């Protein structure tokens, strides 16, 4: 291994610069979130939050907590519904291989390609009739459509890798398929459940199009709308807008730190076959 040659360290330097450039907008968001109103239009802009203020974060606590709570509930609901729908389907497609299974996988692949705006318009019409417009369950249902096809494909790919002997052993021990699924397949599939939950949560947390079309007029609005209204009503207080943006990014940051390998697994699983 050539890990500690001078050449490799030189590359680390370049890598640090590139990463710095790439992440600069993120740094700038954090910097602005601590900047005082009177310094906001300073020229040249302050590169560091000298005379930093917590006003922005105080505003978040005052005004954005209900939005954050809604997003959290919607995220949890989306994760639960996505896993409940997709895990059994993945198992069936991977191990029971029913006739019509490939066709279903095909439909799932196509479903991922439907632009959100089209779904939003269809949902709006349906939700109006059903009376679930501007409700949490309505938004959860809509947000699961972002994750379910992807989740089934991930589960199918992962569960195909479970050795058949393991499942046969369960059957020999007298377990039915339901029991096998619940006590053998699900526990072994923990990694894929983590990956799917992570993405389902992140996608519903960042969803803007369903939030703005299906929940825009209700009492329960997610954080994406909180930020959006903030920009609309109040484009003076950029520290508060950016503080909200920072807080809204925390789930992504936490998930990236805690579940790095699941993240790359998820990004590649949809696109590349082994």
């Amino acid at each position, binding site marked *: 291994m050539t890990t*500690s040659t001078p050449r*490799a*360290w030189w590359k*680390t330097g370049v890598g*640090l610069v*590139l990463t710095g450039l*790439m*992440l600069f*907008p*993120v740094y700038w*968001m954090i910097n602005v979130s601590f900047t005082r109103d009177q310094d*906001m239009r*300073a*020229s040249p*802009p302050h590169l560091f939050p000298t005379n930093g203020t917590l006003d922005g974060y105080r505003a978040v606590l005052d005004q954005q907590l209900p939005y954050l709570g809604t997003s959290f509930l919607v995220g949890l609901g989306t994760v639960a519904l996505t896993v409940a*729908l*997709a895990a059994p*389907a993945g*198992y*069936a*497609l991977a191990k*029971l291989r*029913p006739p019509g299974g490939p066709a279903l996988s095909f439909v799932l*692949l*196509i479903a*991922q390609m439907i*632009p*959100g*705006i*089209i779904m*939003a*318009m269809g*949902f*709006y019409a349906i939700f*109006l009739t059903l009376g679930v417009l501007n409700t949490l369950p309505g938004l959860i*249902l*809509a947000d*699961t459509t972002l994750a379910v096809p992807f989740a089934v494909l991930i589960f199918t790919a992962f569960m195909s890798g479970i050795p058949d002997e393991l499942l*046969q052993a369960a059957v020999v021990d*007298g377990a*039915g398929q339901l*029991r096998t699924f619940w006590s053998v397949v699900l526990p072994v599939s923990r990694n894929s459940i983590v990956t799917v939950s992570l993405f389902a949560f*992140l996608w519903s947390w*960042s969803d*803007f*199009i369903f939030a703005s079309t299906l929940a825009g007029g209700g009492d329960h609005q997610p*954080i*994406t709308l909180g*930020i959006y209204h903030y920009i609309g009503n109040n484009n003076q207080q950029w520290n508060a807008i950016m503080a909200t943006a920072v807080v*809204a*990014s925390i789930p*992504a*940051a936490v*998930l990236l730190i805690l579940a790095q390998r699941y993240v*790359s697994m998820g*990004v*590649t699983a949809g*696109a*590349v*076959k082994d």
Partner: protein
Amino acid sequence: MPSTTETSTAVRDQGGAANAAPSGPPPSRARRPNRWLAWGFLAPVTIYLVAFYAYPLYRNVELSLREYTVRSFVQGGAPFAGLDNYRTVLTDPAFGPTLTHTVVFTAASLAFQFTIGMALALFFYNHFPLSRTLRALFLVPWLLPLIVSASTWSWLLNSDSGLVNSALGVVGIDPVNWLTSPGWSLTSVIIANIWIGIPFNLVVLYSGLQAIPTEMYEASALDGATGWQRFWGITFPLLRPVSLITLLLGLIYTLKVFDIIWIMTKGGPTSSSATLATWSYRLGFGNLLPEFGPGAAIGNLLIVLALVAGLVYIRIERRQQLR
């Protein structure tokens, strides 16, 4: 699910029979309960697909074929209009420019995301201290909520006090009205979209690089190939399948992009950065008087574009699996 206990017993029987006596019941008879059992596991997702994909799509087609007003949207009874909405949209003077914006937005985003992603993937492929951590950090822009990225870029590109303009000022370039001039708005949203798309290209191309056997490089090193020759002779051809899929997925995602443009410019000023997706949203939800019919018609045109890209994707994916 009332039938599960019944079917699972059947499966247990089948398993037992298969183990005890190979000459047991013929496979066709034994397999039938298993088939229904599999569809028991698939039933929730199937019902879900019909209710939450097929039905909204059907509703959308219906919307595009009728003359809806706010009143008829709530109460029903919108008259059938045939292809009128499509005619309205296609003959709208905004149609040509919007289609052009969509094509330019997609093509420019893909070209830059892909080349930058490829360069970064090649760079990170040479493992060096901290390379794993830095590569993980590159994922951040992709994981951030789009509204966060879009508002951050709005502030960076702000005409009066944005950092980009002050940086340009340092080198003596006059401030640019990135988001508020028709000449620059499309460029601005493309820049933000490229930034967001780089991580995806990096990760997928990087995993493609890892699949290339190292022996190929060792052999070419023995032949005295330069780095550039190695790239065009080995890496690029072997990476072609992964590249194609990255580009096609990128195409499908980019056609859908709505949040970034809407949050940064609302498609303006005077629809200079409008794409099919933002136009459709504006007609359906962005006005006080919604025009659901034409909005849905644009949506359906968009879906045709996405599906064509999707079918090409599936064809290529299939062909690669056959190899």
